């Protein structure tokens, strides 16, 4: 088990430790003079898009993968969401997947889950559901949404491909210690308000760069009341305000989720780990570099209107007018609205849309499908609307069938696709055409993110469900 390391310096000179400090300090191997920390990594997730150049690097240097048992691989970013049992059509994508498979073999990596494997799916979904993700761990992946795993009380963050190579070669990365931020949500979320809305609300307050340089701990009644999957949605979006990562102290909700999963500790090891995990909380006297408090009752269902996730508003609100925007940011604001085809001051409720996407590492878990199915039950999909329902993994897909959700969805006129990142980043054929509007449960509304010229409106699974049956931006509370 991870215990405090004698070589470890005290937590940034502070007396009492935050949860982040405890985990970080327990993983320090060394500190470079005048430079970063050498941090040991407990779990490394790899996918096909950001790893090939790292494996090339190992090959060039004649290196092996240092700890194959701590490396989990899944193909997800550049994969089709139909006919996965057939060869991939696009030869360049197929080549990338073939190389990924060859690397897994050449470097002796047994935890490799290719297309069609029951453990295959979006990396940040299969990690937790198979029990790879555990409290107290350091977790990295060549993907910025690695922050998702922070929901378990882990220090999890995205890295670049050079760093993927470092972890493959040495199970360590060099990182500067981030500052710490505490964000507290007091009170309870209102009816029809989801974890995604909470996150979009927070990002709209902090802006897209508002937490850059910080590692965030989420706390408060509204966070404690979230399920494990909802916590993952919140932590997932930490990066969208620039945070290095976000985490939530583990509690009974966490332990209940982890227990019994395939790669989770068992028997005696479980008891030892559990005792340690229970110590993973911020001490009362610990201080953060920054603290923010929000009231959960202030949050309504959220949508975005612009081209970064910080440009969000309540579904009944209006887009800011030019006067309400900082002068320095006005050019970017106008460019953004021009791309979206919106006017300053415009209300978006009731606006016609063309596509709905339910899925991604943000909202592709079973609870998201339950929320969506529960809303559309007995209703019909809107005409002239294309709806992509993409489970985050084959295990989620299986659950959708077993719980009878597929029948509800089919009855309402929806079809299920096969797992993958899909229209979240549109590397495959799931692209929203130029100029079309998509209500999307994914994480980024950047220009071209869902296809060149695509216009993305980020929302939670409930707003997506309401849009799917009305064909318009609709307040699901009505």
């Amino acid at each position, binding site marked *: 088990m991870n215990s405090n*390391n004698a070589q470890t310096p005290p937590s940034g000179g502070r007396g009492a430790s935050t949860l982040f400090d405890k985990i970080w300090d327990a993983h320090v191997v060394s500190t470079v*003079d005048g430079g970063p920390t050498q941090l040991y990594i407990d779990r490394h997730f790899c996918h096909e898009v*950001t790893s090939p150049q790292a494996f090339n690097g190992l090959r060039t240097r004649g290196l092996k993968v240092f700890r194959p048992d701590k490396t989990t691989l899944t193909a997800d970013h550049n994969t089709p969401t139909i006919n996965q049992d057939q060869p991939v059509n696009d030869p360049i994508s197929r080549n990338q997947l073939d190389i990924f498979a060859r690397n897994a073999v050449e470097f002796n990596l047994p935890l490799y889950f290719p297309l069609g494997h029951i453990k295959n799916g979006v990396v940040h979904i299969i990690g937790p559901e198979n029990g790879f993700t555990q409290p107290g761990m350091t977790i990295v992946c060549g993907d910025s949404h690695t922050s998702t795993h922070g929901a378990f009380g882990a220090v999890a963050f995205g890295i670049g*491909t050079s760093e993927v190579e470092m972890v493959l070669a040495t199970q360590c990365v060099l990182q*500067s210690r981030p500052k710490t931020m505490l964000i507290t949500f007091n009170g309870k979320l209102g009816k029809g308000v989801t974890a995604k809305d909470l996150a979009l609300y927070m990002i709209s307050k902090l802006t897209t760069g508002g937490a850059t340089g910080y590692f965030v701990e989420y706390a408060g009644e509204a966070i404690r009341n979230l399920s494990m999957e909802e916590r993952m949605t919140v932590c997932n979006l930490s990066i969208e305000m620039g945070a290095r990562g976000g985490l939530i102290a583990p509690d009974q909700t966490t332990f209940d989720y982890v227990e019994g999963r395939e790669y989770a500790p068992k028997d005696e090891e479980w008891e030892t780990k559990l005792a340690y995990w229970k110590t993973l909380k911020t001490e009362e006297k610990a201080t953060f570099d920054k603290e923010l408090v929000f009231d959960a009752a202030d949050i309504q269902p959220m949508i975005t209107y612009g081209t970064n996730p910080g440009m969000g508003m309540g579904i009944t609100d209006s887009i800011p007018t030019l006067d309400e925007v900082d002068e320095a*940011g006005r050019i970017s604001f106008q460019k953004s609205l021009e791309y979206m085809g919106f006017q300053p001051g415009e209300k978006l409720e009731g606006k016609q849309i063309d596509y709905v996407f339910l899925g991604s590492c943000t909202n592709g878990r079973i609870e998201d499908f339950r929320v969506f199915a529960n809303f559309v039950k007995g209703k019909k999909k809107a005409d002239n609307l294309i709806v992509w329902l993409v489970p985050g993994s084959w295990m989620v897909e299986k659950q959708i069938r077993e719980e009878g959700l597929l029948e509800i969805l089919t009855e309402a006129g929806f079809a299920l696709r096969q797992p993958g990142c899909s229209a979240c980043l*549109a590397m495959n054929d799931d692209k929203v055409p130029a100029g079309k509007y998509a209500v999307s449960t994914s994480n980024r509304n950047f220009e071209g993110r869902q296809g060149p010229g695509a216009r993305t409106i980020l929302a939670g699974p409930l707003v997506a469900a309401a849009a799917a049956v009305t064909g318009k931006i609709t307040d699901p509370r009505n």
Partner: protein
Amino acid sequence: MGKYITFTSSVVPLPIENIDTDQIIPARFLKATNKDGFGDNLFADWRYNKDGSPKLDFVLNNPTFGGTILVAGKNFGSGSSREHAAWAIDGYGFKAVVSSFFADIFQNNALNNGVLPVVVSADFLAEVFASVNSNPKATLTINLQNQTITSNATGKSETFTINTYKKECLLNGLDDIDYLLSKKEQIEAYEKLIK
């Protein structure tokens, strides 16, 4: 990754805030399995029309501007962790990116590829944009050894921060893997400790 000391260059101005890595290199170009050729698709959706012809109003297609320093609005490189963004900037020929604020992961990725992210004050950044606006040939001088950036149009200079270790890496053409590989014994000792 070559050695890196002092250089002077005219700049390419991109006065837009929150330029994310999907703009720097769109996802559809991430299917490659090596690091070559990304420079051709740097800012692809801003740079090219659908038919592949250049969008003449985009700064990279404007022969008035050029140089090895990209100057961008605040919060440059937000979004995805794709190192392809750094490969694209490097591949195009930029040696440094100047902004008042960088996203964390991008900053690491840039440094790991010998592209220097230079953080300047908002005022300095505004003045650089203004001087390039009035004279596209205006130059900046970046001195990594002394950690200074100078606008040769205004004569104004600022110091920038970079951690000593990363600075040494850039000055000597070393990378993090060399360092980590030299720590193998300590890593194994750490693993014994946590068992």
